[in-house]
């Protein structure tokens, strides 16, 4: 088990590196790197979670794309027969290219969000003197979704009691409006009360902020950032030359 949870800076540079190399590297290299990434994360703290997410999201998508590309590819000129099935050669190549990119990018992005919590990212941005409201939105966005869902279920329950048939389009529209109006009313009303509270807590203050716990990067963090940025530069240089 690797117990290293990195600093936001190397993590974000990792994400940048993944996104840029996802569009530059060749198919084979991307497959290889994806397998290496997966192996690396298999031994990580959140390894199981990462692998499960990839199984749930990436694999069905790749299978769908593979099937789609190999069977319906109108531009086909060469056909190959595998196991009695006539498949498009160009389609297979395109599918390989696309799936490699998806597996690589998605693995990287899922890993990124498991390496760092939104809270950690937000608190780093806070210390880098980004506006405090931006940090507030970033951190509270997901928390508010839970509130939204709780309220939604509540209102849905009560509207069902009042009777909410869902048979035709008109009834569905009525139901949507009947649920969304009280839901958004509650959320907006709450948000305007929250606005007063946050104003009173000093969210509009113009003074230079101080930080209780300054965020310090370790040498490992700096080294990792350096390696990733070096890799990005190499990729860009070779990508454009080749």
């Amino acid at each position, binding site marked *: 088990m690797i117990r290293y949870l990195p600093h936001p800076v190397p993590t974000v540079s990792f994400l940048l590196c993944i996104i840029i190399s996802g569009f530059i590297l060749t198919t084979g290299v991307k497959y290889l790197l994806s397998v290496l990434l997966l192996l690396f994360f298999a031994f990580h703290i959140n390894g199981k979670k990462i692998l499960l997410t990839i199984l749930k999201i990436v694999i069905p998508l790749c299978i769908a794309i593979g099937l789609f590309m190999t069977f319906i590819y109108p531009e086909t000129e060469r056909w190959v027969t595998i196991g009695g099935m006539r498949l498009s050669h160009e389609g297979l190549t395109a599918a390989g290219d696309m799936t490699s990119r998806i597996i690589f990018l998605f693995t990287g992005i899922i890993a990124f969000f498991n390496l760092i919590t939104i*809270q950690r990212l*937000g*608190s780093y941005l*806070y210390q880098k003197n980004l506006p*405090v409201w931006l*940090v*507030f939105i970033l*951190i*509270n966005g997901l*928390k508010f979704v839970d509130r939204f869902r709780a309220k939604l279920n509540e209102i849905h329950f009560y509207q069902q009691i009042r009777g909410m048939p869902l048979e035709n389009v008109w009834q569905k529209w009525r139901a949507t409006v009947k649920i969304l109006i009280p839901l958004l009313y509650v959320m907006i009303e*709450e948000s*305007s*009360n*929250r606005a*007063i*509270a*946050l*104003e*009173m*807590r*000093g*969210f*509009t*203050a*113009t*003074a*230079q*902020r*101080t*930080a*209780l*716990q300054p965020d310090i990067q370790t040498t490992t963090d700096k080294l990792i950032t350096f390696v990733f940025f070096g890799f990005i530069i190499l990729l860009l240089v070779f990508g454009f030359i080749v």
Partner: protein
Amino acid sequence: MIQVKKFSCIDEFGSPVIVDASFTVHNTDRVAILSRSQESSTILCHALAGILHRTHPLHKIEGSIFYNDRSIEEIDSHERTNSIVYVLPNSDMLISGVKDTVFGEIALSLELIGVEPNVIRARVSHILQQLDIERLADRDPDNLSGGERHKVALASMIIRRPDVLILDNPSMFLDVTGVTNLLNILRNYEGTIIIADPNPYIWSGLSNRFIVIENEHIEVFNSAKTLIGALGNQIIPLELPSWTGLYLKLRDTLELNDEIDSTHCLPALRAVSGALP
């Protein structure tokens, strides 16, 4: 110093909420706003905090409120919230969630106004101790119970030490020890305190001035004594449950006749509800 001059507020349907209020709140005053309707005391609080025109945009507001001889609505938000802080009754709103510990959450109030880290640490520890919530310091603010959240919210507001602290219904989510701790903090607070609470006798030991809103009209009493006297002599037909309850109880236990005199009333009040000034 807050000066309220001929302040009136009429709600969007044309019925008056507060009519022709004029009074002055001096520095280091402890004011209790007593009202039977939660709405009118909240509106008065919002007006004193300078946010009434934004929270109730359809209300018709007349008259003016001055803070240190400046009209309160003309003071910029960041400047105003440095000196006047209004604490909402709903504690859920006050916790921003930007920090993942209670300590950080309370410290955020001071970080935002640029207080030095050493000072922040000392002040946060102090207020945690005063409110008796030191054990929560490292907990996640999202995983607290309602009462604990309210205490954290109060701490994060009081720690800013504004010149004017307006508390709207602070006892709503507080337990008895919470109220006692809050009272102890407020007793030594250097600044004006304005409390609107439907439970007035909790704060009677603290307040030296009482603003009673009865049928949209405001009456100001400069001591608990005059207020009790007014109650006893039925000068104002106040029917606040706790005051009347206390009054009737006293009348029964002390076997006083109906024309109660405030000099009789006060020692008994002291005995029942703790120290009165």
